[in-house]
């Protein structure tokens, strides 16, 4: 394991990074794709404490790669730590995003398809169906017996206008073990704090920050569609793009009803590697 991390650090140390210009969302996807050839390595965490349960941190490490300008693929590995309980690997996900229209319009659709194989997941990367605080109370030994092999689809709609990004996601998820389709939503709006770039290098220029707001929640399932017995979250969100290519993100999020976890603290770190495979080819020559 040490050799793996040493190799990864060596690899990353030798490549150049770019400024990913990531949106500050944790759950909502914008219509913006990964640049072709670039690899974005991201670590996202969600910290919360459900009433009657133990504090947890759910984490994803994600490898996002731009296959084409219109196709982005991403592989996730998930894990979680629960206080007074255990630290476990909770599964993996593989997602693909396709941009069917090859120009920029007022509203730009992206088709999202994901397969996930998880159990006892606490990363809250989406809320669907009747997901709620009670899902986070069971001990890990019991929660991980509930295997979730799911296909998740999203219709991502995004618009950019005068520096603002407005994104809406409509989510439909199907557990492959004969459960009904479950639905959810996520919306976000964000804007850089400065629109024009400064002529000189700077660490804390306004354009290095993006701030916004994000809201998401469940919409029931095929048999009980709606907002009844579903959880919803809302919170401000901000990120900072450091000059070395690292982006740090933070968002306190608040449960909007009795089915939600009262507070979530999300934080993330990402690093984009330019032209990842090209670099690899060159290094072999």
């Amino acid at each position, binding site marked *: 394991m040490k050799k793996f991390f040493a190799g990864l650090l060596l690899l990353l140390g030798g490549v*150049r990074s*770019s*400024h990913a*210009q990531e*949106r500050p969302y944790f759950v909502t996807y*914008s219509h*913006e*794709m990964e*640049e*072709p*050839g*670039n690899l974005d390595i991201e670590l996202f965490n969600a910290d919360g404490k459900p009433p009657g349960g133990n504090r947890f941190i759910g984490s994803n490490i994600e490898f996002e790669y*731009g296959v*084409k*300008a*219109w196709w982005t693929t991403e592989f996730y590995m998930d894990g979680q730590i629960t206080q007074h309980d255990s630290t476990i690997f909770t599964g993996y996900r593989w997602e693909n995003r396709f*941009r069917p229209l*090859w*120009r*920029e319009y007022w509203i730009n659709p992206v088709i999202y398809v994901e397969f996930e194989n998880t159990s006892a997941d606490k990363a809250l990367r989406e809320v669907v169906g009747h997901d709620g605080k009670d899902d986070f109370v069971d001990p890990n030994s019991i929660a991980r017996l509930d295997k979730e092999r799911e296909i998740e689809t999203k219709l991502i709609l995004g618009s*950019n206008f*005068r*520096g603002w*990004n407005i994104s809406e996601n409509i989510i439909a998820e199907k557990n492959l073990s004969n459960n009904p389709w479950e639905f959810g939503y996520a919306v976000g709006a964000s804007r*850089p704090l400065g*629109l*024009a*770039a*400064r*002529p*000189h*290098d700077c660490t804390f220029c306004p*354009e290095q920050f993006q701030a916004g707001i994000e809201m998401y929640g469940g919409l029931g399932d095929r048999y009980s569609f709606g907002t009844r017995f579903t959880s919803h979250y809302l919170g401000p969100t901000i990120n900072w793009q450091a000059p070395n290519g690292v982006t740090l993100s933070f968002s306190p999020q608040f449960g909007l009803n009795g089915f939600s976890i009262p507070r979530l603290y999300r934080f993330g770190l990402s690093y984009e590697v*330019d*032209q990842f495979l090209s670099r690899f080819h060159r290094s072999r020559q």
Partner: protein
Amino acid sequence: MTRIHVPAIFLLSLAILASVSAFGIADGKWLHNVPVRDHAKTNPYRGEPAAIAAGKRVFRDHCAQCHGDHAEGTKKRPSLDSIRVQEQASEGDLHWLLVNGNMRKGMPSWAKLPDQQLWQTIAYVKSLSQ
């Protein structure tokens, strides 16, 4: 002999067709797709030294990975110090290309950058020939 020649001629034709198509696109085919209104747009930052310096920073952060540190082009991506970019394309054409991309050819949309930064980048790119 005919059996040998027919596939060879077919493959050769395909290769020529592919080359002609590639040249067609490399020859600035996207320029024909730019609407008149976009073509006529002018850069609010044209010639401003501060905007050129800022555009150089934006270029370094987002464009240099494909087009080279000095926009000289790389093995797969074109130089921006070319006649097409410097003379044939108007500032409005370049703005349209940055907003929409040319996804078939691997150029992503940069609509995620604010308009101000796109114009600053264009000011820098256009300054390369001066």
